[in-house]
């Protein structure tokens, strides 16, 4: 069986579901940041697959994937910086402890 576009799309859909599931069920904030990273990398695979099967001349999908990688790195760096600031104040990385903002 040859690997086609559909196989990539299914892989991406599965990865995306894993990412969303991780966002919903994990309590550890580092795990939540990892889930966001999984989501963004799933999208990267989607772009690369579409560029490979439909748009070989210009490969705009691959260019897009590089942009996503750069910005995802920035986002996670910022997320970890914010997490460190939070940890200095509360000494916890459990999302259940961050409930001071509630009506």
């Amino acid at each position, binding site marked *: 069986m040859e690997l086609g576009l559909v196989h990539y799309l299914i892989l991406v859909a599965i990865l*995306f579901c894993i*990412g*969303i599931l991780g*966002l919903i069920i994990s309590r550890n*904030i580092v795990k*939540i*940041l990892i889930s*966001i990273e999984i*989501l*963004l990398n*799933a*999208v990267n695979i*989607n*772009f690369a697959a*579409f*560029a490979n099967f*439909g*748009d070989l001349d210009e490969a*705009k*999908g691959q*260019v*897009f994937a590089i*942009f*996503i990688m750069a*910005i995802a790195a*920035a*986002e996670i760096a*910022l*997320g970890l910086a*914010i*997490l460190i*600031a*939070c940890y*200095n*104040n*509360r000494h916890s990385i459990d999302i259940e402890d*961050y409930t*001071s*903002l*509630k*009506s």
Partner: protein
Amino acid sequence: MDFLLDIKTAMLPEAIITFTILVCTVLCFMLKQEKQKIIYLISLLGLIISLTSINLLAANKIFTGFYNSFTSDFFSILMRFLILSGTLLVIIMTKDYSSKFKNRQGEFYLLMLIAALGALLLSGANDLIMIFVALEALSLSSYALSGFLKKDKSSNEAALKYLIFGGASSAIMLYGFSFLYGITGHTNLTEIFTYLANNNTDTMLNFTFFLIIAGFLFKVAAFPFQSWAPDVYEGAPVPVTAFLSTVSKVAGFAILIKFIGLAFNNVEIITVTLGLIALLSITIGNFMALNQMNIKRLMAYSSISQAGFVLIGFALLSYSGISGAIFYLISYLVASLGAWLAIIIFNTQTNKSLISDLNGIAYRNPYFATCFAFCLLSLAGIPVTVGFMAKFYLFHAIVQEGPAYLWLLILALLNTILSLFYYLKIIKAMFVCKQENESFKLNFDAGILNTSLVALTLVVVLLGVLVTPFIEIARDSALSIKLPVKQVGLSR
């Protein structure tokens, strides 16, 4: 030198803001902490120059540059004007508040300018890559800004929640982008729309449309993605909250309008869904706002419901609806900036943010209370203010669409009445309730904050009276976005 020519004709405000950012970056490193107040003045100067440079852009023709990734039409010029004046007012707001930032004042203005740059680029972006990068420039600096009070627990928590929600929703939006790229094979919006007009696309496009608007609904805090707004608005520093509820919303709507064009292969489903999203945001925002004690939290729910009203204009999928939405956006921006200015004057001087703290303030500060009350009445949509005209124009657009949208009209009207309750609650606290134990008097002199509050109140009233030219501006800007929209009820 095509590149320089492109900048001169289409991106002059952005170029000036970029230059200001570079200057501020250098100054941040060079100046001692106690001298960083000068960065405040420099960023104000940069914003004012950039605002005046908008006049130099050609308003009557559509310009595309940078390999078609940026369009400068009348709509984007209007949006850039709104974004720049909003940022200018937000930076003015920080004049006294910035002492809370201890020794990191320079960075605050730097991040604020980067966020403004992202919003400016977003309002003219015409390429999926450009949209993504501009949106993230806006988002990332907003995350950092909302956590700016490092030692403050609620500010930390706000930044963390904002980042997690924002990261997830931008990933969902990118998933939509990837399908749009897969279906059409282009990343340029103009080419995508040409492709969609000439090819018969499948139902996958609807799925893609909803994935994409997820990212923008998050930015404007509309229904399925509204839950971050109250927490972040409450925890973030007040100027940042004002920025999030005005400038960042305008940028979100400016880019959402461009994607409305995707909807035209399946009008029925998308109209009904967008209408439902709009109604649910209005209703949820109103009901949650009813029993809030904190002004910042109340304004957060109020901004959710106001975003719903703008979305009604989009749900109509017609030029009259979109021009109604644009005019509503202008009125929301003016009134909400005024309300935030009043809140920040109160918060900086008293360090309180409950509604009951405002009790009887009208007896000691009648001018302050009157200005605040006018802004709130405009948000509620009472005649003489601009909010009434905006709601009237929007409902007029719904009526023009015929009886199919009657449900939208009736429920929106009912919600308008409902929203009066919580706006009047603040006004009642200021004008009717007796003051409690301690009495304080706000310092309401001729400072820049108070002057701008009075000026905004005047704008709110004047726009409500002299409304015709502004409705024409909204209509012209709606027409300048070349959308495949049905031309209903537009006498032109």
